[in-house]
């Protein structure tokens, strides 16, 4: 049998890797990739707590479903912004996007 700790450690590791991606990458799209990893780690946590708690309360799965919807919304708006910024400034390297307006 798999103890709950394994799932929690997996989720924490995935979260750490996603955090590393967000902090370290130069490309704006790659930063959003890291955010996706973090959201997936959170979802694993939620579903694991549902499974190892009371199966009749579906709060864990409902929360995970809402996180799916929020992640999809955030990715679409984020990537639309990145594409729009690329059209203006011709770059998506986060270090070079340092002026609010010129």
């Amino acid at each position, binding site marked *: *049998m798999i103890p709950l700790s394994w799932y929690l450690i997996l989720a924490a590791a995935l979260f750490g890797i996603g955090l590393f991606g967000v902090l370290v990458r130069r490309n704006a799209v790659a930063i959003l990739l890291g955010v996706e990893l973090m959201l997936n780690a959170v979802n694993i946590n939620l579903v694991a707590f549902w499974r190892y708690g009371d199966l009749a309360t579906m709060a864990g799965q409902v929360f995970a479903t809402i996180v799916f919807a929020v992640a999809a919304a955030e990715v679409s708006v984020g990537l639309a912004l990145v594409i729009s910024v690329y059209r203006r400034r011709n770059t998506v390297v986060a270090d070079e996007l340092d002026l609010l307006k010129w």
Partner: protein
Amino acid sequence: MTGEQIIFLVVALFTLGSALMVVTTRNLIHAALWLVSTLFGVAVIYTLLNAGFMAVVQVVVYIGAIAILFIFAVMLTRKDLRDNTPQTNKNWWAGALIAVLTFAGLVFTLQGWSGFSKTAPAVPSGFDAISQLGEQLTSPNAYVLPFEVASVLLLAALVGAVYVAFNKK
């Protein structure tokens, strides 16, 4: 080591390995494809957790829509087809340190919790997670309000994304 534990270890290693490749590979399209394999690994984890609906929705929403959106965005925001610039900024050691500290902090905090190593309760027979989830998402005593607000959020994101990315000629 039961079979289930072996399967879990294999899938977990696959997922974490793919996630590491996502954040370290230089070629962005490869990073998006490694993200696809990470998301697939997470879907298998959901299946191990008896959440079959979550697994299928993960494949449909994340791999079928979000990953494809990432691939499109990577293709539309590049000046040339080859990535030969370094992909990490100059403070990568600080980022790595913070990530490791976060992981260690999370595991340390959870270890003090009494339920950290509990085993899974058995699934009651005749338990249909989908009909339960459907009832909870649409029943006024349960979570219909967050469900409806999430759909309004998706509508707002849809309109916003189309407006922001629209190429006004």
